[in-house]
């Protein structure tokens, strides 16, 4: 399957992030078109396109928009989730750095559709560069009349606030993000009510991922049938894939949904030094690992589930045979323990139990009983925690045991760093070359 650059098509323009460059390549024509269309028709178009949320869950975007009640007399809000913090996910920040106006144009079109006059871009706090670039781009768009009062004579008034977070993975969960944006601890809310009914300031709110909203202008401009020429019936369109790990040319590759990992890996020059894939994760640390057996699986929401994993953020991480599964899984669990918000017991306590036990295996001090105990602890968390973070923490271990049981058994006595030389896993020289 060929690569299909759309969002990334003009990133090689030396100033791709400027309003001038964006307009030179047809930017903001979709907005003019949308503003002449009935908002409900815009929602219908996005529904027909089949665009699905790119933040991980894959929920149909147009359907989400249609849940916002109309003529209810309350303000509506659009909140763009730019909290990209999932280990492995690294595609929203590149979009904001290289093509910020696609996001802004998408925001204006979305706000027209859902009748919102206030939008927020919530960007994680640890990344000043996309924060300053989005802010500058919002100012540019405002000066050009794409934001502010009566945009392009449509009657739409819209302000965008670029909002920086302060370090908390959980704020990528949409209701935790809303609490954080209200100036509170970023802890998830009970659903229902869903944000579309009671979101930001208890008003109807759409929360969409950066890549999702950045896709909207291209769909409006080029049409549903064009969009559906790419991808599959249930997983249509293009996708910004961020390929990382032990690959020869890690980077951003834009291609339709349905491309295989094997094809993406070929474009990325294969695994380094002609080595083989040991395991890979299609979209972040929260999805089950797969092996070389799944390199031919189409990367669609459905096929990846059938293969036993999830598409997640669509940002595959690949590891070669030098990598210790025990060490990789332990490190991810240390992350979930660190990031558990503490609101619910299964996640707060469970991540401590799992991680403490995993750390023993990593040191070569595991026990046969604990190999099975860990499965049971994960089962006690799965489906019983308040939000998806607990499920995510309960996910990685069991598939790794099913695929690499002998490695866990070796870890009863052998530390991970003895079984797998850390220097061999590294892609950089293990010594500094200066001084010592």
């Amino acid at each position, binding site marked *: 399957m060929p690569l299909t650059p759309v969002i*990334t098509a003009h990133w090689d323009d030396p100033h791709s992030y400027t309003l001038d460059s964006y307009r030179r390549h047809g930017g903001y024509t979709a907005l003019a078109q949308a503003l002449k269309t009935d908002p409900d028709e815009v929602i219908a178009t996005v529904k027909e396109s089949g665009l699905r949320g790119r933040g991980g869950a894959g929920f149909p975007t147009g359907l989400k928009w249609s849940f916002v009640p109309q003529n209810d007399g309350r303000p509506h809000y659009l909140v763009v989730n730019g909290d990209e913090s999932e280990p492995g996910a690294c595609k929203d920040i590149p979009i904001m750095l290289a093509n910020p106006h696609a996001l802004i144009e998408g925001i204006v079109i979305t706000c027209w559709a859902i009748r919102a006059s206030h939008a927020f871009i919530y960007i994680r706090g640890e990344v000043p560069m996309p924060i300053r*670039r989005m802010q500058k781009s919002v100012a540019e768009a405002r000066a050009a009349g794409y934001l502010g009062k009566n945009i392009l004579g449509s009657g739409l008034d819209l302000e965008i606030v670029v909002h920086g977070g302060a370090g908390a993975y959980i704020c990528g969960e949409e209701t935790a993000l809303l609490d954080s944006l209200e100036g509170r601890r970023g802890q998830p809310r009970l659903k229902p009510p869903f944000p579309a009914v009671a979101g930001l300031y208890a008003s109807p709110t759409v929360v969409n991922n950066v890549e999702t909203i950045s896709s909207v202008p291209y769909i409006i401009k080029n049409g549903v049938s064009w969009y559906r020429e790419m991808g599959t019936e249930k997983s249509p369109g293009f996708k910004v894939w961020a390929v990382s790990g032990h690959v020869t040319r890690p980077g951003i590759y834009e291609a339709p949904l349905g491309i295989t990992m094997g094809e993406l890996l070929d474009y990325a020059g294969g695994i380094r030094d002609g080595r083989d894939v040991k395991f890979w994760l299609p979209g972040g640390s929260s999805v089950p690992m797969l092996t070389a057996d799944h390199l031919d699986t189409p990367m669609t929401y459905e096929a990846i589930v059938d293969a036993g994993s999830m598409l997640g953020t669509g940002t595959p991480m690949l590891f070669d045979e030098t990598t210790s599964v025990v060490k990789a899984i332990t490190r991810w669990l240390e992350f979930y323990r660190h990031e558990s918000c503490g609101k619910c017991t299964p996640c707060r306590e469970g991540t401590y139990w799992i991680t403490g036990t995993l750390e023993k295996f990593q040191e070569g001090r595991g026990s046969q009983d604990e190999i099975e105990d860990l499965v049971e602890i994960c089962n006690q968390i799965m489906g019983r925690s308040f939000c998806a973070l607990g499920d995510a923490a309960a996910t990685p271990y069991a598939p790794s045991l099913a695929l690499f049981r002998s490695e866990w058994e070796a870890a009863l006595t052998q530390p991970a760093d003895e079984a797998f030389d850390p220097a061999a896993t590294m892609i950089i020289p293990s010594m500094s070359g200066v001084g010592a």
Partner: protein
Amino acid sequence: MPLTDQTAAECRDLAARYPDGRSALLPMLHVVQSEEGMINSAAIEMCADVLGLTTAEVTAVATFYTMYRQKSPGGTHHIGVCTNTLCGLLGGDAVFAALSERLDVGSGETTPDGKFTLERIECQAACTHAPVMTVDWEYFDCTTIADAIRTIEALAADEMVVATRGPAVRGWRATERTVAGIDDGLADEARCVDAIMLAGLEVAKEKGMTAPDPGKGA
């Protein structure tokens, strides 16, 4: 440095950006932290005062997020090394160990001269650029041990150090203001689109691959 009327005015300006002023609490905490070097009682009280909240309400928020320092002021420069699985195993662990040895501090600690605070950080959303280091939260992508040590030496000598995808670093407190949403005028300072972000586009162009032609069949 005591909090000034100007800081209070900046906090009020931030609050005015939102339909509900409390939404500005996270940005305000970044601003007061840039003044105080940490979230101390003066910082908490100012935010509570501006927003009409109790100090307990503000403290609850300040203690939740990892970027706010509770115990001691941050150093001139914040040095972050991603040690999550991918960056860590691909080299971040070794980079962190080398920096920790060179600076003689552990994660979260500040050197006695107040120059550097070193921290193991979680995934920085730049896995394609592993191993990732940050200086004052600006990206120092694809770092090596030698690069990291050189960067530290240059900062110690007060030389100009430029991020790989970002501007020349200005100190951690200046970045705290940027993150709060106060314009630093540096948005166009660096292109921030590098070969890794262009990898797929380059392959597509080499092979003559494009998205479908919108003119056809639409």
